[in-house]
C-alpha cells in the first residue's frame, strides 16, 4: 500500500491506479486485519461512491488537493448519515445528522472517508481497553495495547488500513497511541482546528488532529482542516499558514529538554538512551540543546484530572435517555429514565470520571479542587510560556515506555492516568505537540519522541519535525 499521499497522488495522476481501486484495496486490507478490532465500521458504499466521483474529477482536472486521500475517523467525529458512538453503549445506533467541520473540509478537498475507528469510550483512556466494543490490538505485537484513546486510529494507520486517521487529543490521546504504534501523531494548538462535530469530552482541552505515516501528510491534513469556523467560537481567526510548504526550513533551533522527563526512574532505559542520542544528533547538526528543570511535572496529571473530569461531567449530562441514544428498559418515570439509562449506558471509567467531575464541582469543594486546578493550570501555562520565550521547542519522550500488555494496567486507574505524564502539558497550556516515531526498542515495539512548541507555531514545529525525520 501507499506510504504517503504524495506517492498516492503521483500514482493517481499518472493513471497507474484509480480511487476506486485504492478504496477496494484498503477494504481488503481492513478485512485481513479484522482481528485488530480497529474498525468499528467500514463505510464501503459511501467510500466507493465518493471514489467514483473523485476519479471523474481527476479525469477532468477539477480534483481537490486531497483527491483520493483515504482517511478514517475516530468514532467521536460526526460524518452525516453515518453512525458515531464514541465506542459507548449509550450511543449505540446513533447516526450523525451533520458533518463535523473537519469532515466537511476534508470532503471539500476530495478526501475519501473509509470508516470509523474504535477508541476508548468518550476518549477516556490510554489503552483502548475502555471501549464498549472490545479492545484493539497493537498491529506490531497483537498481545499489546495500541494506546489510547485514539487506539483504533493509530492501529489502522500503522497496519496500513488507511492512509491517515483523525484522532482527538485531550491529554495525549493522539500522541501516546502514535508512539505505541510507530506513527506520527499531531495535536494542534487549542483553537487551530474547529471542534464542531467532535463528541465533547473536555472542551477546554480537546483538539482534533491527524495520525499519519509521515510529517508531510500531517502537515497537509492540518492545512486543510485548520482555520476559523463560525460553528466553534473557540476556533482561532489567525491565518492558516501553508503547513505543507514550510518556509522556515534549515534554521538552527534552540531546544530545551526537561531533565526530569529523562532522569525519572519510570523511563525505560532504552527510551532514555534513544532520546539522549537524538539530543546528541541535534547538537551535531548545529542546534542548541539545553537541559532545563521543570518542577511542575508531578502536578500536571492531577491538574488535568480535576479539570477534565469537571468538564466531562458537564458535557456528558446531555446523555439523558430522552433525546437520543440509549434508554433503559426499566425507565418508568423521569428520574429512572435518566438514572437507569446513564448507569446502564456508560461504562465504568466514564462513570468514574463523571463522579469525580461532579464531586470537584459540587458545593463546598468547588474552590478547593476546581478553582485550585484552574489556578495551577495558569501557573503551568505561564511557566511553559516562559520556556518558549527562550527556546523554540521542548523535547521529551512521548511516553515513558513502549506499549504494555493487554489487561496489564486495567485494574489501576492511577497507573493508567500516568501514561499521559509527558503529553498532558501541551493540553494544559494549549500549544501544539507532535509525536515522531524514533525507532524500535529491543522488545520489537516502536516508541516516539515528542516536540512541543509555543501556541500557533505549527509551521515551525512541522518543518523542524520534517527535518528531524529525514
Amino acid at each position, binding site marked *: 500500500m501507499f506510504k504517503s499521499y504524495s506517492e498516492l497522488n503521483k500514482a493517481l495522476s499518472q493513471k497507474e491506479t484509480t480511487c476506486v481501486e485504492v478504496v477496494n484495496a484498503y477494504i481488503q486490507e481492513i478485512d485481513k486485519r479484522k482481528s485488530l478490532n480497529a474498525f468499528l465500521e467500514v463505510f464501503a458504499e459511501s467510500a466507493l461512491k465518493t471514489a467514483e466521483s473523485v476519479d471523474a474529477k481527476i479525469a477532468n482536472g477539477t480534483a481537490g488537493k486531497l483527491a483520493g486521500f483515504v482517511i478514517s475517523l475516530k468514532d467521536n467525529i460526526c460524518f452525516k448519515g453515518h453512525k458515531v458512538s464514541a465506542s459507548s453503549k449509550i450511543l449505540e*445506533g*446513533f*447516526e450523525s*445528522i451533520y458533518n463535523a467541520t473537519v469532515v466537511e473540509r476534508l470532503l471539500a478537498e476530495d478526501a475519501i472517508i473509509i470508516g470509523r475507528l474504535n477508541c476508548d469510550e468518550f476518549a477516556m483512556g490510554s489503552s483502548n481497553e475502555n471501549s464498549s466494543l472490545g479492545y484493539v490490538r497493537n498491529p506490531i505485537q497483537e498481545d499489546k495495547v495500541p494506546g489510547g484513546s485514539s487506539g483504533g486510529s493509530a492501529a489502522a494507520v500503522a497496519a496500513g488500513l488507511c492512509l491517515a486517521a483523525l484522532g482527538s487529543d485531550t491529554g495525549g490521546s493522539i500522541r501516546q497511541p502514535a508512539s505505541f504504534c510507530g506513527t506520527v501523531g499531531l495535536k494542534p494548538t*487549542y*483553537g487551530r482546528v474547529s471542534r464542531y462535530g467532535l463528541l465533547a469530552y473536555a472542551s*477546554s482541552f480537546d483538539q482534533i488532529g491527524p495520525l499519519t505515516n509521515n510529517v508531510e501528510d500531517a502537515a497537509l491534513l492540518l492545512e486543510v482542516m485548520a482555520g476559523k469556523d463560525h460553528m466553534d*467560537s*473557540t*476556533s*482561532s*481567526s489567525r491565518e492558516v499558514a501553508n503547513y505543507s510548504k514550510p518556509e522556515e526550513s534549515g534554521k538552527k533551533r534552540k531546544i530545551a529538554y526537561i531533565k526530569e522527563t529523562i532522569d525519572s526512574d519510570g523511563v525505560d532505559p532504552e527510551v532514555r538512551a534513544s532520546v539522549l542520542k537524538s539530543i546528541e544528533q541535534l547538537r551535531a547538526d548545529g542546534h542548541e540543546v539545553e537541559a532545563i528543570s521543570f518542577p*511542575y511535572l508531578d*502536578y500536571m496529571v*492531577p*491538574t488535568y*484530572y*480535576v479539570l477534565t473530569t469537571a468538564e466531562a*461531567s458537564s458535557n456528558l449530562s446531555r446523555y439523558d*435517555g*430522552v*433525546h*437520543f*441514544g*440509549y*434508554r433503559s428498559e426499566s425507565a*418508568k*418515570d423521569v428520574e429512572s*429514565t435518566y*438514572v*437507569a439509562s*446513564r*448507569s446502564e449506558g*456508560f461504562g465504568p471509567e466514564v*462513570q*468514574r470520571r*463523571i*463522579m*469525580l467531575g*461532579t*464531586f470537584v464541582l*459540587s458545593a463546598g*469543594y468547588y474552590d*478547593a*479542587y476546581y*478553582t*485550585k*486546578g*484552574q*489556578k*495551577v*493550570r*495558569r*501557573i503551568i*501555562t505561564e511557566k511553559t510560556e516562559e520556556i518558549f520565550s527562550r527556546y523554540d521547542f521542548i523535547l521529551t519522550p512521548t511516553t515513558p515506555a513502549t506499549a504494555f500488555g493487554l489487561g496489564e494496567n486495567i485494574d489501576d*486507574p*492511577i497507573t493508567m*492516568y500516568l501514561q499521559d505524564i509527558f503529553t498532558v502539558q501541551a493540553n494544559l497550556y*494549549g500549544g501544539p505537540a507532535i509525536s515522531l516515531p524514533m525507532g524500535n526498542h529491543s522488545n520489537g515495539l516502536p516508541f516516539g519522541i515528542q516536540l512541543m512548541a509555543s*501556541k500557533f507555531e505549527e509551521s515551525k514545529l512541522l518543518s523542524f519535525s520534517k527535518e528531524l525525520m529525514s
Partner: protein
Amino acid sequence: MQITDETVDKIAELAKLKFEGEKKQEIKKDLNKVLDFVEKINELDTEGIEPLIHISDEINVLRADVSENNTTQQEALKNAPKKDNYYFKIPKVIQD
C-alpha cells in the same frame, strides 16, 4: 478528604447515576484513590494567582443575530429512543 457512602450517594444523585452494593464500594475506593492522587495540587502555593478559564485567545466572538435552521424536525427526532411524528416520548411524568 475521605469519600464516604453518603458522599457517593450525594454525588451520584447529582450526576444521575446509581451505585449499589459492590459497585458502590468499588466507586468509593476508586474515588478515594483518585482524590488522594489529585490532592497533590494543594502542595502548590496559588496565593494571588487568577484561575485560568479561557484557553482560546479569541475575544468577543460575535455574529449577526440571524437564525439558521439546519436541522429539520425529522432529523432532530431521528435518534430518539422513543418518539412519534412530532415529539420525543418519555414515560408518564405525573403518576396516577
